[in-house]
């Protein structure tokens, strides 16, 4: 099987040298690009320097987050990042067909994912490995998609975590429909069993008709849906300016529901804002749009080469806003954790990655008959015949030869 590296690029030496994109004159005037500043309306509870900023509106949503809870969020992010890096490395070693890195988006995913209740539902795109982790989906269960042995196989209902959706924006309408169902079934209200749905998509997806239609549907049906847009600044090679004239969270106003921007690298901020938004939805005040302002620190996928279209300076600036480092600093300064804790988490992350690696290397290939399964809810005579004919053809080669 050819590696995707081979088919997305010309032969080595055949193409032009990979050179960083030049900024436009407007970008130079603006001081590179304005990706690093979230603007005056950015909600932030924990600064990049690890300083806790009070918020009258959102502090009530994180009163339970003591040092122990914060250590938990830190541990979540470290494990998720370590697993992400391991998967990225395994793709390089040919164990995965492709990997979609989430590096830099740990806080947005862990913070929002930890805001969900078990009865809530999440609709991911294809980069939400951190959300999957918070929903109890084992990282090992994600690997099949990227090793190309399956299209995703976790128990979607048990985890409240829908299958990954690769076609950009499709899942937003699906999430709107699911949330409409929650509303139709009377699961919205003040009681303790109220439900909500969260839907993940990126800055690029906001151009898709499906996303706009999802906004419309959720709005007119008062669906309990949190639109969680991770604005990581880049849709493969296209900066957010190619998708929108105004900050994405401001679009919500046009559809008639609240929209706000949170520092997507602030796990506490993401947790608080998402809890607030989910509560609004559960009480019948949905939908809500959250724009988590973050940065894609790695490539779009392992087949992508960002040096062709963006400046490395940008990455360097964002490294100072690292989602994990600020929690570490805060914990260390506030006495919430000592070095032993950090060392233990690192050791645990190494074990976590080693287990993932061991599992991946030993994943069996699916048998050929799997190809014909589950096309329909009932057996299909046509496919049964195709399967039997093909297996009999394969048998003609002798066992294990083909």
């Amino acid at each position, binding site marked *: 099987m050819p590696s995707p590296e081979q088919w997305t690029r010309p032969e080595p030496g055949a193409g032009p040298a990979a050179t960083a994109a030049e900024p436009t004159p407007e970008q130079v005037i603006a001081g590179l690009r304005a990706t690093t500043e979230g603007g005056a309306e950015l909600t932030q509870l924990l600064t990049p320097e690890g300083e806790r900023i009070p918020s009258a509106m959102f502090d009530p949503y994180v009163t339970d987050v003591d040092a122990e809870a914060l250590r938990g969020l830190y541990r979540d992010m470290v494990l998720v990042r370590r697993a992400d890096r391991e998967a990225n490395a395994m793709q390089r070693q040919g164990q995965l067909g492709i990997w979609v890195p989430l590096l830099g988006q740990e806080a947005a995913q862990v913070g929002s994912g930890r805001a969900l209740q078990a009865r809530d539902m999440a609709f991911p795109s294809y980069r939400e490995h951190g959300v999957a982790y918070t929903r109890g989906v084992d990282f090992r269960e994600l690997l099949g998609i990227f090793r190309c042995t399956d299209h995703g196989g976790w128990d979607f209902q048990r985890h409240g975590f829908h299958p990954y959706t690769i076609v950009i924006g499709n899942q937003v309408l699906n999430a709107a429909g699911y949330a409409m169902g929650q509303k139709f079934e009377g699961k919205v209200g003040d009681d303790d069993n109220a439900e909500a749905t969260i839907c993940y998509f990126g800055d690029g997806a906001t151009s898709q008709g499906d996303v706009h239609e999802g906004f419309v549907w959720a709005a007119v049906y008062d669906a309990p849906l949190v639109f969680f847009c991770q604005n990581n600044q880049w849709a493969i*090679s296209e900066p957010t300016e190619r*998708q929108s004239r105004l900050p994405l969270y401001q679009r919500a106003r046009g559809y008639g529901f609240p929209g706000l921007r949170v520092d997507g690298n602030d796990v506490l901020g993401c947790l608080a804002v998402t809890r607030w938004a989910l509560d609004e939805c559960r009480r019948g005040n949905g939908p809500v749009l959250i724009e988590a302002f973050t940065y894609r620190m790695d490539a779009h996928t392992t087949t992508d080469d960002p040096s062709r279209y963006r400046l490395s300076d940008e990455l360097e600036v964002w490294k100072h806003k690292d989602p994990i480092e600020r929690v570490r600093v805060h914990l260390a300064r506030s006495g919430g954790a000592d070095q032993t804790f950090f060392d233990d988490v690192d050791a645990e992350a190494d074990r976590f990655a080693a287990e993932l690696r061991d599992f991946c290397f030993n994943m069996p290939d699916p048998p*050929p008959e799997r190809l014909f399964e589950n096309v329909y809810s009932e057996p299909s005579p046509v496919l049964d015949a195709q399967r039997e004919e093909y297996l009999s053809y394969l048998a003609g080669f002798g066992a294990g030869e083909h």
Partner: protein
Amino acid sequence: MAAPVKSTVDTAMSSVQNLTIGKALNLGLRRAMEADSKVIVMGEDVGKLGGVFRITDGLQKDFGEHRVLDTPLAESGIIGTAVGLAVRGFRPVCEIQFEGFIFPGFDQISSQLAKLHYRTQGKVKVPVVIRVPYGGGIGAVEHHSESPESLFAHTPGLRVVSCSNPVDAYWMLQQAITCDDPVLFFEPKRLYHSGALKAAVDTTATPEPLFASRVLRQGGVDAAATLVTYGPSVKVCLDAATAAAEEGKSLEVIDLRTLSPLDLEPVFESVRRTGRLVAVSEASSESSLTSEIAARVQQECFYSLEAPVLRVTGFDTPYPPSKLEEHFLPDLDRVLHAVDRALAW
């Protein structure tokens, strides 16, 4: 609007270049843009990045952002605005990043692009080309390996073509761009950068007509069977014919090139001599181009057929996880197996 830009790549030194399919497409686009300032390229990541497959590499740098548009991420938007631009007099060449992402644009293709000329009694022309990398064999995740060409061939008003080699890639793309009808241009993505398929492209040659199929391998007087195919399966069939020849079986191979309109006369002529036809495609078989070929061949060559028309195709399932794609995709063995069945009929 700025004046047309002269390409900075000087290719006039030699009229013959040894190119991959990917490089031939790039050069074909470049030539079309030089020839007509109304030709514009639009799609996701086609500008600065040069496309995820690098087919539009260098074009934005040389022709400018007003002619190579990094569009917002929405396929319906790409195709719908291309229709409007065409009505205004432009000749847009849209890139859909992978065939599996074309479906948000299917409404615009089916409802507007395919029907405007008919609806307006020919008063409105929509010369839009939609380039679609398609087919499997690249070990990809879902929606990156499909073969949806039959859906478009089934849609009246659209022309649908597919290239299988660098010479056709170079010429057919330019011909599609000068065609006044909308053209779906399917490109065999797994062969884009295949060094083995590199071929000498003579840019001063007279190209074959766009809407014509071509016999790639003659079987001679004792030809045993005919293989008809297109796009990525052409290489599979040529390899099968070579293998069959080593066993003393002579096969004819026909590259359809045009999927709508179909040019089946060369197929009929061949089948009347060989009496046997195997149609090969990565697409699922049900209600597909291979169904259409089988129907028309039995109608036109009924008394010449020594065996039913057999098909080697993807199964009637969604495209599988790519660890299973070697089973799904027609390969040399499955093609030869079908030939043997036809011969033993």
